[in-house]
């Protein structure tokens, strides 16, 4: 860290969609992202955690410049994404998506798939491209005999390896991983997580890792941002956030991590039955209908936003709750 600008930064970004409710009814506005600021430094990993509908995948699309924000800006090396140019941007920021079954072209061989970005970006001669693609496939641990296979001949884990090789073949600065392991089996998930970590060291890249699994994020990320209904409700160094959460939603997410400890039973999250609906964001603090610690002020006033640096929480009672969550009685069962 220091004087260098972050490799990739999001500044006060908003994104709305219009959702149809049928032929004759007026469209409704869906507030996917409501004023998010985040940044990831060189060779660091930023985790973004949240449940469906919290805007994390919309944010990923904006980070990849696939979608322009309605307000705010995405900065790559301090320059606005709008001025960087699509081709240049895509060479420097590459995605790994969740579903390795739908992101590979079924008619291309594995080697062709990994060579394709080089061709689009006119890098090198055909031979050089092939050598480079083969080297990447070696690095991700795919056997040589698979190079001329088609995706349907590979397992889910192998496909995700191909997707990672394809993302890295252009030597990007940033990798955006949107739930890269949630479609994989447990034993394979660990292989892919280890691979991502190794390759980060090897290539010196920055990673934005989007997940709903806090245990995975804790394992992989330097910083973490917890999102709820389009806002970052808590952010900070991963270890701090995990050890002493300052937002009741983060606390609930942490409690939801089920460790394989017999006898601990199931935690009582006390979240009630309300369900977050991004087309109908509650006034005040968006989390208040589910919050076990809510007070009258929570339904009327929006809590102050997270600070950009350090460990921040978007909660009226962050300090009080931090104390309560850190108390011995509240220590997340089965940790340590």
């Amino acid at each position, binding site marked *: 860290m220091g004087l260098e600008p972050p490799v990739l930064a999001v500044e006060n970004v908003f994104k709305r969609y219009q959702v149809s409710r049928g032929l004759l009814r007026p469209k409704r506005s869906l507030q996917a992202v409501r004023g998010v600021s985040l940044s990831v430094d060189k060779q660091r990993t930023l985790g973004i955690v949240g*449940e*469906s509908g919290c805007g994390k995948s919309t944010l990923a699309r904006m980070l990849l410049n696939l979608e322009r924000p309605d307000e705010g800006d995405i900065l790559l090396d301090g320059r606005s994404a709008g001025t960087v140019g699509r081709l240049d941007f895509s060479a420097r920021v590459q995605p790994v998506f969740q579903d390795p079954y739908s992101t590979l072209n079924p008619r291309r061989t594995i080697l062709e798939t990994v060579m394709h970005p080089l061709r689009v970006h006119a890098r090198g001669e055909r031979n050089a491209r092939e050598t480079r693609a083969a080297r990447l496939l070696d690095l991700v641990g795919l056997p040589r005999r698979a190079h001329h296979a088609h995706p349907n001949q590979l*397992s*889910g*884990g*192998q496909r995700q390896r191909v997707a990672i090789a394809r993302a890295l073949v252009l030597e990007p600065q940033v990798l955006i991983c949107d739930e890269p392991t949630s479609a994989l*089996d*447990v*034993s*394979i*998930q*660990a*292989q892919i*997580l*280890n691979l991502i*970590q*190794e390759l980060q060291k090897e290539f010196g890249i920055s990673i934005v890792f989007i997940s*709903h*699994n*806090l*245990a*995975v994020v*804790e*394992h*992989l*990320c*330097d910083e973490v941002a917890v999102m709820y209904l389009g806002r970052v409700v808590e952010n900070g160094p*991963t*270890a701090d956030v*995990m050890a002493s959460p300052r937002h009741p939603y983060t606390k*609930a*997410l*942490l*409690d*939801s*991590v*089920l*460790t*394989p*400890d*017999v*006898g*601990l*039973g*199931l*935690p*009582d*999250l006390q*979240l009630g*039955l309300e*369900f977050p*609906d991004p087309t109908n964001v509650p006034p005040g603090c968006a989390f208040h209908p589910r919050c076990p610690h809510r007070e009258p002020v929570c339904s009327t006033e929006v809590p102050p936003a997270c600070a950009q640096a350090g460990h921040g929480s978007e909660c009226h009672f962050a300090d009080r709750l931090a104390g309560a969550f850190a108390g011995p009685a509240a220590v*997340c069962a*089965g*940790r*340590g």
Partner: protein
Amino acid sequence: MAALLDIRNLHVRIPVGFGHVHAVRGVNLSVEAGQTLCVVGESGSGKSMSALSVMNLLPPRAMRDADRILFDGVDIAQLGPRQMAELRGNRIGMVFQEPMTSLNPAYTVGNQLMEVHRRHRGSSRSAAWARAAELLELVGISNPEMRLRQYPHQLSGGLRQRVMIAMALMCEPGLLIADEPTSALDVTIQVQILRLLRDLQRRLGIAVVLITHDLGVVARVADTVAIMYAGQVVETGSARAVFASPRHPYTNGLLRSMPKPGNGRGEPLQAIPGTVPSLLETIPGCAFAERCARADEACRVGPIATTIEERHSFSCNHPADIRAREEV
């Protein structure tokens, strides 16, 4: 106590091309009334096929073969389609992973809930409606009368899964089979649904077979566990015994490959190398041998020793020592 469901030596073969996939290779499972059995395994381990066998809902050309599938003393492997239809949804309820694909989008929630009761109990519309409203309330859905008039797409994922559970419980079954009921849900919703299942089980005294790949879930809800790999149960026993001292290298590997909260960053996870073997070919010895650090030549050829202890049994020639997990 006699088991409510007792499966002995179940085989499932699915024809493909010239051969067949031997998806389930001699599985024994049993669950007692009021207990929870968790069947754990990765994709292709045969866990879903085993469950579908009980319901006789296997894919069209699949062949099922078992010494017996006893449900409440009756061998349901011998029952005809009509008798099976009488059991399904009536005495055995089932909840699937994807609530969106298992609910009919063209009918209201109420219609679909009522159908079960009207069909199996021959109840009147008003009685079935009242029962449906009662069940929605039981699974923690507020304003049930309004929900009954809604269509599946108007509900969130968590609500749909509650509706599925309500539907499975409409006729007070003795056994509930839940195939990955929470895998498609958000983590906080998962905990709520699991709590709901546990509360209902205690209140109604039903037996639950929960199929999952998540050992965290298993540890928190199971009475007994069966770990499946490549169509076989490799380790089974009381949850306490299996988690306190996993003996099969695959169980140990699964536990080690989970990221543990509180451990922080850095250390690579202990992944299990390799991939699951193809079940198109016969596997002579131990199916896990190719990925196992303890395997020797005898493991690849077979036969594999099965150790049966009081509350714990496993099939492995080189099982881990007791309480090996604490050394890790």
